[in-house]
């Protein structure tokens, strides 16, 4: 850090210390840049995670919920989502939403980058799978991905650095069923260590990944990137909430205004600003940064900031088995995956497809009060109901491709603010016709899968409201400033020293968990910034 006219100044300011912010900070610090990151949350304390406590499942429903509205912590901002089919989920803190994610770590498929060319829907990306593949490989190694190479759902060269985690008795049952059906399946890649790796411990199978990993075996940037970034000189300031990006008369960013943990308002100058606040937080910040020069929000000459929100509509199918499969033991992300119905088949009546992840179904409280497909029985029959569910069920989690729709959007919610008085967002999201047909088809097929695996009963949830983890698309990248917010490397067309490095830039969603793609894109954008440092326009 330094100062200009007495004001704190840095070369690169990063907003958000989550997945993409951690990757960008690590690479920039390594390259010798002066980096300051402002993070509204705090350092997570692994010792406070609820995994070992008997009240774990109760805590998961409130303090450790993925919903900022349910948690209601001071560092969270509210998201007005009452008019949305899907609620937004996220976490504020170092590591970001990785603290609470399941750590499924699939890549997009080559066709995901070319949906317009191949299927006449969505938009092509301004890059290809082949261009992103080297970055996937590097981030797979940095985060410590466990999995098995050779998956015929991906081009060659996607071998994870660590062997796959156990697929469990449930995974084996379903794998055998797919063998009989002739359907694709594969041991799932997860960003959870199957062996000690780079000073981190291997998984000890608490089965509580989505409320924080007390072992540090699940990858999140608070354990994988920030310690090294800080050691290399990066400054990470927690409890620091950015209200707006500041711009000068030339239309370049000069830094940001933020409020610190004491409630003091401050300004920090920066040559370049990176936005890594997720597709809701980044859109919110761009909209909150409106000024006379940028009356509709920063970087919004296309009118697309906040629009095209994609969240992956999520359905799930539950199968009951007579034998124990003990699916609550081990990692919570996918045991196995299937891409059998991922690619477009026009005979099905919809475009694109879905990825399936075979997931565990929780502990005893979740058996009594299911959070996904399932039901409750109280009074006589309660115990039989819980025994049938607990350890004897598995769930196909179905992520459908979410085609971009400008009516699905992030806006500022009139009258709603966070605890610092900064305007908060509202989301509008409706499941489209194509998505509904896609989910219905896949629910039927997933039911067929579980019945073939021996399930004596199945239940399904056609759309899970609390599933909005995959926040994408609100500042899409592209080559045409009229139809995109950023260039192919995340740089705002309108403000060339502001770069979006999170999932906001996705032109389309694909149908896989996006974190591995978000971090690969963040690394790619950061490398581009470094390589072009001499040509970088700044306000200074």
């Amino acid at each position, binding site marked *: 850090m330094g100062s200009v006219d007495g004001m704190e100044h840095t070369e690169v300011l990063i907003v958000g210390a989550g997945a993409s912010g951690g990757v960008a900070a690590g690479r920039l610090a390594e390259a010798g840049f002066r980096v300051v990151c402002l993070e509204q949350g705090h350092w*997570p304390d692994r010792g406070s995670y609820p995994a070992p406590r008997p009240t774990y499942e109760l805590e998961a*429903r409130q303090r450790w919920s993925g919903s900022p509205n349910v948690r209601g912590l001071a560092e969270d901002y509210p998201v007005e989502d009452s008019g949305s089919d899907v609620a937004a989920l996220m976490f504020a803190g170092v590591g970001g939403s990785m603290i609470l994610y399941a750590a499924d770590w699939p890549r997009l498929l*080559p066709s995901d980058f070319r949906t317009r060319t191949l299927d006449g829907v969505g938009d092509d990306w301004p890059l290809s799978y082949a261009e992103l593949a080297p970055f996937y490989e590097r981030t797979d190694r940095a985060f410590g991905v466990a999995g098995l190479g050779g998956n015929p759902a991906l081009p060659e060269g996607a071998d994870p650095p660590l062997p796959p985690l156990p697929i469990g008795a449930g995974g084996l049952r379903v794998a055998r069923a797919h063998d009989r059906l002739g359907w694709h*399946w594969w041991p799932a890649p997860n960003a959870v260590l*199957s062996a000690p790796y780079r000073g981190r411990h291997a998984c000890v199978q608490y089965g509580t990944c989505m409320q924080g990993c007390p*072992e540090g075996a699940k990858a999140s940037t608070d354990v994988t990137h920030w310690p090294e970034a800080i050691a290399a000189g990066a400054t990470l300031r927690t409890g620091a909430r950015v209200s707006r990006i500041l711009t000068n008369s030339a239309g370049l960013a000069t830094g940001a205004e933020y409020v610190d943990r004491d409630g003091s308002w401050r300004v920090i100058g920066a040559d370049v600003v990176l936005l890594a606040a997720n597709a809701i937080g980044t859109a919110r910040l761009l909209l909150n940064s409106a000024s006379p020069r940028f009356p509709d929000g920063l970087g919004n000459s296309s009118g697309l900031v906040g629009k095209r929100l994609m969240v992956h509509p999520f359905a799930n199918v539950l199968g009951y088995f007579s034998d124990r499969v003990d699916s609550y033991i081990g990692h919570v992300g996918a045991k196995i995956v299937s891409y059998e119905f991922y690619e477009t088949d026009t005979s099905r009546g919809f475009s694109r497809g879905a990825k399936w992840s075979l997931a565990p179904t929780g502990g005893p*409280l979740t058996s009594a*009060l299911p959070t996904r497909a399932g039901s409750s029985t109280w009074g006589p029959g309660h*115990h039989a109901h819980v025994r049938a569910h607990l350890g004897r069920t598995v769930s196909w989690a179905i992520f459908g491709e979410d085609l971009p729709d400008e009516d699905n959007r992030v806006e500022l919610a009139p009258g709603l603010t966070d605890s610092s008085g900064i305007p908060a967002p509202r989301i509008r999201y409706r499941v489209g016709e194509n998505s509904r047909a896609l989910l219905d088809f896949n629910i039927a097929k997933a039911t067929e899968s579980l019945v073939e695996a021996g399930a004596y009963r199945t239940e399904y949830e056609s759309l899970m409201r609390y599933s909005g983890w995959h926040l994408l698309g609100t500042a899409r990248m592209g080559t045409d400033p009229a139809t995109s917010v950023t260039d192919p490397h995340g740089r705002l067309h309108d403000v060339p020293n502001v770069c979006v490095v999170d999932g906001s830039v996705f032109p389309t969603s694909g149908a896989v968990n996006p974190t591995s793609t978000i971090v690969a894109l963040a690394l790619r954008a950061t490398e581009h910034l470094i390589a072009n440092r001499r040509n970088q326009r700044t306000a200074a």
Partner: protein
Amino acid sequence: MTPAPPSQPEPTPVKPEPPDELRDWLRPLADALIPAEDGMPAAGHLGAADAQLDLVLVARPDLLRPLQRGHALTGGMSPAEALTALPELDPAAHSALLEVVAGGYYAHPEVRELIGYTGQQAVPVRVADFPEYLAEGLLERVVARGRVYRPAD
């Protein structure tokens, strides 16, 4: 690598103190929701309105407020009447009641043992050198069926 210590420790939770009247109301409701059956004890018998309620409210102090509403709304009713009426009168209070009773019940070590729950324990992962699915040739056949993605430039 070890992350930095938390920069802002969480405040120590204040233990909520539900009144005896609420406990007396809750106890028979808990027994009605989770009765003694199939070799399992009833929830009230295991302290759903006593020690388990205290445990639950330390973890979830937010549940006390809707629980108090449920008590106020159905305090004069029989357990059966209360459990029928509450979902209509105050769905959030009913949800809180279920979370309190089931949350306390399934946090009890005796219940966990009876149902054979072995989760949330640190058991180091063991990666098999040659998992069953490889031994059975399942993946060979997946590969033999060919790629399932469409190439794209």
